[in-house]
């Protein structure tokens, strides 16, 4: 048996042993505060069991294993619905950036271990009212202030900022430079005076994203990550950290088996709904699509294990799976007729069609809107040209508004 297989078995055994305490069933009915506390306890247990920071350096508190073990563990873990969502951004982007770019290694090590144990949470302060997909259009200002910096402006859609101890932020240090070149990257203590976090209630009723306001927030120059004006390339490095992460061909919504279970007892025109051609076609098309995504993932894992770079087709997963989950959720609700009115938005998006449906638009926008993903495929994989870009080669403060 190969090492990855052994690792999978070990991970599976541990996850199964703690699932009754932290898993999907244990979380039902908890308030968000209770669930977060459970999540912190789970992360501490995961750290103690040796499954935290799997592909991070041992000297930084990680396990020193490869990307393969990381994806294996994440894939296995996903099946149990553990309370890891609060820490996904924190451990996914900001903390790896600290490991890669920060010079005070002792301080980084302390942050890494606290983040891995769920004791500290980091948020990523990128998007703004004027800069979402167009990240480099951001307007939050970082102005020189003695030997440090002064931060003013507003961030938007910041996940879990209300629970975060620290954040990483990109701000504009030079509005006379071209838009990508006048940006600088910092870390910020979220308890600094002048930082204000206001949760935003989303359509589904939850408030995991926030507006964050900065009013004359003082930063030391030691909080700068990367060079002055190099903020965009540090932000881009963030995107390259996890080139192959665990995926879910169900689009982070319910499994197709649940659709079949939902439909099995329903009727259309007095006949079993499973005999209806529209229902059958939907099941078949979704199965074929998800099987294809699963095979792409399976092949990517084989390539990683063989020391090869997985193909770019892995980038299809979110684009294809989330929008199909959206339509499948609509149909699942429709098929239930008047009974479909019943709504439990607080239920798990992976177990409840209403919750899956109301939250699906977020999935199609966050982490790369469908349109941006299509642009990336067209430009980076197929070699098609960029769009017409009136903002190119122009100083930021000269771009037509």
């Amino acid at each position: 048996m190969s090492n990855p297989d052994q690792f999978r078995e070990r991970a599976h055994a541990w996850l199964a042993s703690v699932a009754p305490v932290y898993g999907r069933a244990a979380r039902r009915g908890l308030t968000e505060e209770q669930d977060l506390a459970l999540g912190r306890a789970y992360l501490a247990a995961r750290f103690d069991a040796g499954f935290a920071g799997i592909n991070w350096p041992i000297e930084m508190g990680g396990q020193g294993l490869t990307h393969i073990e990381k994806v294996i563990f994440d894939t296995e873990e996903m099946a149990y619905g553990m309370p890891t969502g609060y820490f996904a951004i924190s451990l996914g982007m900001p903390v790896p950036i600290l490991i890669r770019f920060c010079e005070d290694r002792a301080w980084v090590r302390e942050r890494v271990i606290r983040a891995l144990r769920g004791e500290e949470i980091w948020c990523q302060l990128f998007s703004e009212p004027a800069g979402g997909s167009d990240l480099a259009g951001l307007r939050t200002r970082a102005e020189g202030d003695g030997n440090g910096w002064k931060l003013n402006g507003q961030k938007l859609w910041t996940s879990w900022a209300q629970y975060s101890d620290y954040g990483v932020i990109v701000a504009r240090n030079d509005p006379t430079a071209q838009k990508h070149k006048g940006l600088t990257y910092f870390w910020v203590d979220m308890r600094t005076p002048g930082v204000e976090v206001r949760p935003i209630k989303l359509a589904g009723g939850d408030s995991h994203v926030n507006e964050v306001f900065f009013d004359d927030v003082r930063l030391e120059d030691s909080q700068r990550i990367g060079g002055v004006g190099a903020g965009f390339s540090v932000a881009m490095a963030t995107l390259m950290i996890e080139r192959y992460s665990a995926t879910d061909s169900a689009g982070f919504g319910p499994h197709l088996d649940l659709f079949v279970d939902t439909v099995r007892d329903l009727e259309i025109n007095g006949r079993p709904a499973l005999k209806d051609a529209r229902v059958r076609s939907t099941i078949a098309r979704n199965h074929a699509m998800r099987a294809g995504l699963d095979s792409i993932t399976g092949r990517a894992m084989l390539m990683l294990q063989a020391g090869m770079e997985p193909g770019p087709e892995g980038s299809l997963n979110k684009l294809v799976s989330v929008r199909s989950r959206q339509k499948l959720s609509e149909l699942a609700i429709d098929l239930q007729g008047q009974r479909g009115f019943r709504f439990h938005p607080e239920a798990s998006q992976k177990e409840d069609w209403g919750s899956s449906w109301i939250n699906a638009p977020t999935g199609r926008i966050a982490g790369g809107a469908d349109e941006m993903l299509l642009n990336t495929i067209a430009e980076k994989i197929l070699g098609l040209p960029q769009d017409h870009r009136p903002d190119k080669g122009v100083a930021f403060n000269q771009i037509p508004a």
Partner: protein
Amino acid sequence: MSILYDEGQQAIATESRRVLDARANKARLLGLLERVGAWDEMFWNTAVEQGWTALAISEEHGGLGLGLTELGLVAQATGAATAGAPFLAVGHGLAHAVAAIDDAALQAQWLPRLAAGDMLGTVAFGEGSSPLTATPAVTFADGILNGAKDGVTGGLKADIALVWALADGEPALVLAELAGADRTPVDSFDNARLIADITFAATPARLIARGAEARELALDVLARMAVVTAHEQVGGAEALLFIARDYANTRRAFGQVIGAFQSVKHRIAELYGLVEIARANCIHAAARAGQADFLIAAADARISATDAYDTAARDCVQVHGGIGVTWEQGLHLHMRRARSLAIEQGNMLFWEDLLVERLTGVAA
């Protein structure tokens, strides 16, 4: 679990593409469209010369002893080239059925000749609009076959066919030499497929399997042919993706190449998604032949590949605008092939229903 192609398989893919590219001739293929009963003999000679007829036949019977993965790679190359002879998939279907039954004499009689390309095999399952009816109208009794099959791919030139028939009230698979059958060419939108309506009138035939065993073997044969055809569809769809991409990168309108317009570039990016999903399903399905989940994997491959090729055919023409609908430009070779391949080996409706039946236990 999926597979990665090994060196030998990669060589088959590269070499088959190279050979077909070198011998590609659009004028020849366009000419075939308007002639009923003509076929691309040059392609078929290439197939025999390259050993593609022998690929998936055992070494014991003069074949190369390879499998569906290798055959699929060749089919992908022929799909990209809209190569004009249909026997890769249907010939494999017949050879697989002969190899699957316990009859050494029959295997020795047919397999070496099929491997050498001396004999052409096909599969005649469908009647009317049904790819595999529960109660075929073609009947088999006392070594004699009677009745008609509609639209048999390759039927016009094949020497022998695997036929889905009714024997004493239960389904059966029989082998019939076609010299003794009446064949009427179908004037089709894709004439190089050698499609024929075949009427058996006291045609001698030989029983291969009956009852549940016959249905199981018929489904296995259909699934194998569907996987080969799905590779062919992926090859065609990918070719169209690249043709559309290249055109969008050179054709200019409104002061820029049209590929800079999101309405065009997103259309092409969506094709990429369809092609890669279908390709992944094909690779997986070919590696699952003979396993319990093969039919499901084959259905996934078939459904996604049909979707990919049809969509690519529509959208590639659309990206081209007016030039895309001309005879000479030839995109209609792919449009036509996308439709004929969508019907051969069971249409989308058939595979959707079969897949859902396997997944849920509920028949349509």
